C-alpha cells in the first residue's frame, strides 16, 4: 500500500510511510497523527494505541486540508543514545504563505497511573537546540522527544500541494522528514459552527501561576499593565484555538473582584457608578477586539462575557424586595448600558448570570442549576428589573443566562421571554431532543456544559464535546474550568480535567501555553464547521448521520436518551443516581471511542471538501 492510499483510507489528512521500529538505530525524525500521542520511550501512549499503532510512525507527514485553518501532526526525535540535537522546520518558497509553528511537548507524569502523557505545548524558536533526555522534563531513560507541528493555511492560499521539511542534526549527521501539505479549494468558514467556551473563576490564580511576574509588581500586580496583558493573553490563546474564555468575577456570597466591575458609590436612589478605570482596562481591548489585533483569525470582539451582576451587586441584598433594591439595580445597570453604548461595545453578549448556590450560604435561592422550582420566581423578578433598566431597542446586547439542570424542562417554559441564554446540563438535555430547535426558534441561545477530558483518556476523547454539540443542534458548550492544572501539573499531574492551557512562566513565557488537547479540539471544530458548510448541497441530517456512523457507529437517535419516568415527578424527588442511569444509553456510545474515530470523520469531510470548487 502506498503512503498516499494509506492516507486516504486510514487517516485522511495524514499519510504514512510504514516504519518498523526495529530499524531505528540512528537519530531520526518520525511523524504521528495528532490522535497518536507519543510517549518518551518510542511508543504511543496506551490510551491511543490501536492494533497498528506502531505502524503509525511515519517517515513523512502528508497532510490534506481546507484553507483558513490549521493542520497538525506530532513530530518525534528518536535518539538511540543520550546526546545533543538541533531541530528546525522550513517550508519551500512557493509555500511562503503557509506558516509552521513548532512546539515542544511536555511529558506530564500522571500520579494515578504512573505514566507519561504529552500535553503542554511550549512554543519554540528555531532551530531548537537541546538534548535527550530533555533536561527540564527529567525523565529517566528518555529516548524520544515529541513536538507538535501546526501549519496555518491562510484563506488566500492557492489550492495546490506544498512542501517543506523538518531537519534534525545529531551525531554530526543531518536527517530530514518531508512535509507535504495538499491545500484544497474549500475554505473553512470564519464563524465556528459551535462556540467552545472555556470557563474560569476570578483572577487570584494568576498570581500563583506567575509568581515571578506578580512578585515583580508586588502589591500593585492586580492593577498593573502586566496583569491585564496576562488576562488578554488568556483570551487570545483560546480565541486563536477557536475558543472563547470566560472569567467569572464574583463569589457565591457576592464578593466582586475589583477588575470585574466599575466602582460604585452611594446607596438607594443615590447609588451610581463612580469609576470605570479598572473595568475598562480589563474589558476595553476585549470588547473592541484590539486585544486580538495580531491574531491569524483577525481582530474581533469577544462574543460573550459575564457581567458582575449578582444578588449583592449592584444592589445590596440588604434592600432586597424593597424600593431601594430596585433603585440601585436599575440605576447602575442603566449606567452600564449607557457606557457600553457610548463606547460602541455592542458586539459582545453581556451575560446577566447568577452562579450562586444555596449550599454556599450566600443567598437563599439557587441561581445556578435550580433544583427547587420556587427559586424561579427570583429569575422573574430580575427579568423585571432588567427590563426596567434597559431602554427598548438598545444596541447593547444584554442577555439573561441561566445554567440549567434539574429544573430545566420547567424553566424552559416558566422563564420563556425572561431567560434567553441557556447553558444546559448534558444529562437532562439528553432526553429533550426538541429543546435546542425550540429554543433557537424563539431566539434563545442554547449551550450545554461539560468538562475537559483527562490526558489519560484517548486523545480523540476531546472531540466528543464539539461533536455532541453539533449533533444536538446546540450553539455552544462550556468546559467549566480550564486553567487549573493542579498543584504540580509538570511532575505530579492530576490529569488535566480542569486545564486546557498551562502557565508559561517556567519556560520564560509570561503567557499561557496551549495543550495537545486544545489543539485537537480546535482541529475538530474546524472540521465540523467545514462539514456543516456543506449543508447547502446535502441535507444536514444526512451529514450528521454519515458523520455519526463513521465516528462511533451510531445513528442520530443514539445521541439522545428516552425521557425517564421520574422526569414526571417533582425534581426534589429525583436522585443523582437515577439521573446518571437515565443518561447511560447515549453516554455509552461515547465512552470508548476508537482512537481513530475522528480521523474517519475527517476523511469523509475532506472527501466532500475535495468536491468543492
Amino acid at each position: 500500500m502506498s503512503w498516499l492510499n494509506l492516507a486516504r483510507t486510514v487517516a485522511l489528512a495524514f499519510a504514512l510511510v510504514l516504519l518498523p521500529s526495529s530499524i531505528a538505530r540512528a537519530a531520526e525524525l518520525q511523524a504521528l497523527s495528532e490522535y497518536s500521542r507519543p510517549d518518551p520511550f518510542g511508543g504511543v501512549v496506551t490510551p491511543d494505541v490501536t492494533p497498528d499503532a506502531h505502524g503509525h510512525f511515519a517517515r513523512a507527514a502528508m497532510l490534506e486540508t481546507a484553507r483558513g485553518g490549521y493542520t497538525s501532526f506530532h513530530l518525534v526525535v528518536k535518539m538511540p543514545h543520550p546526546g545533543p540535537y538541533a531541530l528546525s522546520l522550513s517550508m519551500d518558497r512557493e509555500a511562503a504563505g503557509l506558516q509552521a509553528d513548532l512546539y515542544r511537548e511536555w511529558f506530564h507524569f500522571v500520579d494515578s497511573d504512573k505514566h507519561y502523557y504529552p500535553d503542554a505545548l511550549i512554543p519554540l524558536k528555531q532551530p531548537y537546540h537541546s538534548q535527550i533526555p530533555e533536561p527540564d522534563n527529567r525523565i529517566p531513560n528518555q529516548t524520544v522527544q515529541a513536538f507538535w507541528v501546526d501549519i496555518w493555511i491562510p484563506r488566500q492560499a492557492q489550492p495546490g500541494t506544498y512542501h517543506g521539511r523538518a531537519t534534525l542534526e545529531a551525531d554530526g549527521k543531518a536527517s530530514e522528514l518531508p512535509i507535504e501539505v495538499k491545500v484544497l479549494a474549500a475554505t473553512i468558514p470564519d464563524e465556528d459552527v459551535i462556540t467552545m467556551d472555556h470557563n474560569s473563576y476570578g483572577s487570584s490564580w494568576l498570581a500563583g501561576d506567575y509568581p515571578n511576574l506578580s512578585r515583580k509588581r508586588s502589591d500593585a500586580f492586580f492593577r498593573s499593565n502586566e496583569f491585564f496583558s496576562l488576562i488578554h493573553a488568556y483570551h487570545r490563546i483560546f480565541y486563536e484555538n477557536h475558543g472563547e474564555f470566560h472569567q467569572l468575577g464574583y463569589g457565591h456570597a457576592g464578593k466582586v473582584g475589583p477588575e470585574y466591575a466599575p466602582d460604585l458609590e452611594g446607596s438607594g436612589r443615590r447609588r451610581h457608578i463612580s469609576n470605570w478605570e479598572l473595568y475598562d482596562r480589563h474589558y476595553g481591548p476585549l470588547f473592541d477586539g484590539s486585544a486580538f489585533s495580531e491574531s491569524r483569525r483577525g481582530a474581533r470582539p469577544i462574543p460573550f462575557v459575564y457581567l458582575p451582576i449578582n444578588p449583592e451587586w449592584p444592589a445590596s441584598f440588604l434592600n432586597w424586595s424593597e424600593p431601594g433594591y430596585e433603585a440601585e439595580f436599575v440605576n447602575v445597570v442603566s449606567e452600564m448600558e449607557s457606557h457600553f453604548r457610548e463606547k460602541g461595545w455592542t458586539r459582545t453578549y453581556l451575560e446577566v448570570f447568577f452562579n450562586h448556590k444555596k449550599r454556599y450560604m450566600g443567598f437563599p435561592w439557587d441561581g445556578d442549576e435550580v433544583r427547587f422550582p420556587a427559586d424561579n420566581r427570583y429569575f422573574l423578578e430580575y427579568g423585571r428589573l432588567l427590563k426596567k433598566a434597559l431602554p427598548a431597542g438598545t444596541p447593547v446586547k444584554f442577555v439573561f443566562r441561566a445554567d440549567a439542570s434539574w429544573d430545566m424542562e420547567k424553566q424552559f417554559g416558566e422563564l420563556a421571554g425572561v431567560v434567553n441564554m441557556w447553558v444546559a446540563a448534558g444529562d437532562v438535555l439528553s432526553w429533550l431532543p426538541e429543546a435546542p430547535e425550540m429554543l433557537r426558534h424563539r431566539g434563545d441561545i442554547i449551550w450545554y456544559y461539560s468538562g475537559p477530558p483527562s490526558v489519560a483518556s484517548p486523545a480523540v476523547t476531546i472531540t466528543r464535546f464539539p461533536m455532541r454539540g453539533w449533533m444536538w443542534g446546540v450553539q455552544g458548550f462550556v468546559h467549566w474550568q480550564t486553567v487549573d492544572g493542579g498543584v504540580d501539573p509538570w511532575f505530579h499531574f492530576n490529569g488535566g480535567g480542569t486545564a486546557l492551557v498551562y502557565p508559561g512562566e517556567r519556560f520564560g513565557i509570561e503567557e499561557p501555553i496551549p495543550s495537545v488537547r486544545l489543539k485537537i479540539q480546535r482541529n475538530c471544530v474546524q472540521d465540523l464547521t467545514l462539514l456543516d458548510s456543506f449543508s447547502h448541497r446535502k441535507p444536514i441530517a444526512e451529514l450528521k448521520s454519515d458523520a455519526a456512523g463513521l465516528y462511533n457507529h451510531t445513528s442520530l437517535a443514539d445521541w439522545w436518551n428516552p425521557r425517564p419516568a421520574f422526569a414526571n415527578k417533582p425534581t426534589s424527588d429525583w436522585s443523582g443516581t437515577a439521573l446518571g442511569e437515565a443518561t447511560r444509553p447515549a453516554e455509552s456510545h461515547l465512552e470508548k471511542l476508537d482512537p481513530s474515530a475522528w480521523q474517519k470523520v475527517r476523511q469523509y469531510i475532506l472527501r466532500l471538501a475535495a468536491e468543492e470548487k
Partner: protein
Amino acid sequence: MRLLLIISGMILIAGVLPGAERDMARELDEVARAATVIVDGDACQRIVTPRALDYMFKKDPRDQWVDGDNYEVNDQAFIAVKKTLIRLSRLAPFPCDVNLWMPIAGHPDKVRVVIRNAHEISQFWPWGKLYQDMIPQMKQVLDTGRRMTVTAKPGWISVLAPVHNSLGDIVALVEAVSQARRDAHENVK
C-alpha cells in the same frame, strides 16, 4: 464573674495585638455584642429545612453531591436574618462580615455555617463545606454564652457571640470577622 472574664479577655487581646488590630477587635466586639441582642434565634432555627438537615449527613458513593443537591432553606427566614447580619456589619467603620453559625442537633461534634456575607471572609469555614468539626472556641461560646475573640490566623480577627431563641436557649452564634489586610481577590469564585 462573667464580666470579669470578658474584661480579662479584652485585656489579653489588648496585650498581644498591634494597635490597629486592637481597635478592630474592639469594634468587632461591639458588633458581636449587638448581634447577641438583635439576631432572632427562632428565625435562625427556621432557616435550614429538616429535609436538608437529613440529607446533610447522607453519603452515597454513586451520588457524590447528594448532600449539597438537597440543601434548601426557607428563604423568608434566611432573608430576615441575613438583612440583620448585614446591618450589624455596617456598625463597624471598616469592611467586616457577620456570619451565622449553628450547631447540629444530634451531632454535638459538628457545626455549620448558615449565612455568609459579601466580603466572603471567615476565619473558620473551609470553602464549600456544609458542616465541619466543631470549632473549640465556638463550643465554648455555645456552652458558656460568653463572647470570644479569636485571632488564630495572623491578621484575622473574629469575635464569636451567642444567639438566643425566645426560650432563652443558645441556638446559634455569630462570627463578626475582618482582616487587617484584605485580599480583594480571594474567594472570587
